[in-house]
């Protein structure tokens, strides 16, 4: 089937749909607006680069069109980021978060930060909103990619959900009011749900237990690794937002477990969404 401009236009429209739906929770979150201008510029730049790399990877697994080469994945990633930027800019102006008497650095910072979830949404839009997708090719890619691909999808899912929670003041407040026992319980619960979501309750896209794998080897190989990925992603996101600056290690561990909860759910369900 030839990819025509009309078909591409449909994919692009779905991308805008995805950007709005996945982006709206954060577009309407107050902390995101102030983080846009107050977070470290170097960290914001790094986050944008990280997003671009993530988008290229996501484009490989499920983009708004089937891709054949790195060049096409890169083109799709730029298009998705473009869609994310435009969607964020328009909505932020409509919501009066951006007004034109603001300084350029302020405006660009706000749009740039919001474009992270919006562009991931744009990339996933085709998969979630489209009907005619090439499931076979997609499954084949996921199989070919093996363990590394598995980890990448976990990382993408963890980042998306963690990113949705991390800006809010609540993450820190919850960490403050938890005792060590609460933190331990939440950590165990996160791992349990991660394991159950991925291997037991028959969501579509669920993994079969690897051949010859016992419960213990599966647990070590996937669940524990998945939770590790979730914690690392949480640390990265918290650091990006400056939440870890000057915080004691003990308090940081609490914050990681709190944010690790949504992150591990994201890691577990990445296969359903991507």
């Amino acid at each position: 089937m030839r990819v025509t401009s009309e078909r591409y236009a449909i994919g692009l429209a779905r991308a805008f749909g995805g950007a709005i739906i996945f982006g709206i929770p954060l577009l309407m979150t107050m902390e995101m607006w102030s983080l846009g201008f107050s977070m470290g510029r170097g960290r914001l730049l790094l986050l944008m680069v990280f997003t671009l790399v993530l988008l290229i990877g996501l484009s490989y697994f499920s983009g708004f069109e089937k891709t054949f080469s790195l060049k096409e994945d890169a083109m799709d990633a730029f298009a998705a980021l473009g869609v994310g930027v435009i969607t964020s800019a328009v909505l932020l102006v409509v919501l009066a978060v951006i007004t034109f008497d603001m300084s350029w650095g302020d405006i660009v910072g706000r749009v740039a930060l919001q474009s992270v979830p919006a562009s991931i949404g744009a990339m996933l839009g085709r998969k979630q909103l489209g009907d005619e997708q090439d499931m076979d090719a997609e499954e084949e890619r996921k199989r070919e990619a093996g363990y590394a691909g598995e980890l990448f999808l976990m990382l993408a899912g963890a980042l998306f959900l963690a990113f949705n929670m991390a800006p809010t003041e609540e993450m820190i407040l919850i960490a403050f009011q938890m005792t060590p026992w609460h933190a331990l319980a939440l950590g165990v619960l996160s791992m349990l749900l991660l394991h159950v979501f991925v291997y037991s309750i028959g969501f579509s896209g669920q993994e079969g237990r690897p051949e010859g794998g016992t419960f213990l080897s599966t647990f070590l190989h996937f669940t524990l690794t998945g939770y590790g990925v979730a914690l690392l992603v949480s640390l990265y996101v918290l650091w990006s937002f400056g939440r870890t600056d000057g915080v004691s290690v003990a308090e940081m561990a609490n914050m990681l477990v709190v944010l690790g909860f949504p992150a591990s759910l994201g890691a577990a369900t990445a296969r359903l969404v991507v």
Partner: protein
Amino acid sequence: MNREHKAGEIQTAKAEQQVPWLEWAASGIGLFLVLGIFGVIGWQVFNGATTPPEIIVEVDTVAPVEGGYRVLFLARNTAGEAAAQVEIEGTVSKAGADTETSRVVLDYIPGHSERQGGLFFTYEPRSGSLAVRATGFTTP
């Protein structure tokens, strides 16, 4: 569909010629926006984005309102870093009377940006000396 995927290698050469113009346009606009954003943020990195806040307060207008006077001011952050919880204090002193002080807290003033606010007084601000200044901030 599946067969087409298996013939991927053959398709690659063709696909390059067949990239629709809309895809070029969308990717091009995306690339342009990405470079623009990276440029602006990158520029800030090397141009004093990390200098601590410096806040200058200017009185904009003074107008009589019911029960007193309203002073509108502009608080301008001339440095690169954003300031949070900026406290603005205004005083009006009148000869032979106490000084009247009013305060307000602005949530944020981003770097190189300004925010507007207002203070209320019961004394006529023009009759005495009106002074408005920022007394402090926290880092966000």
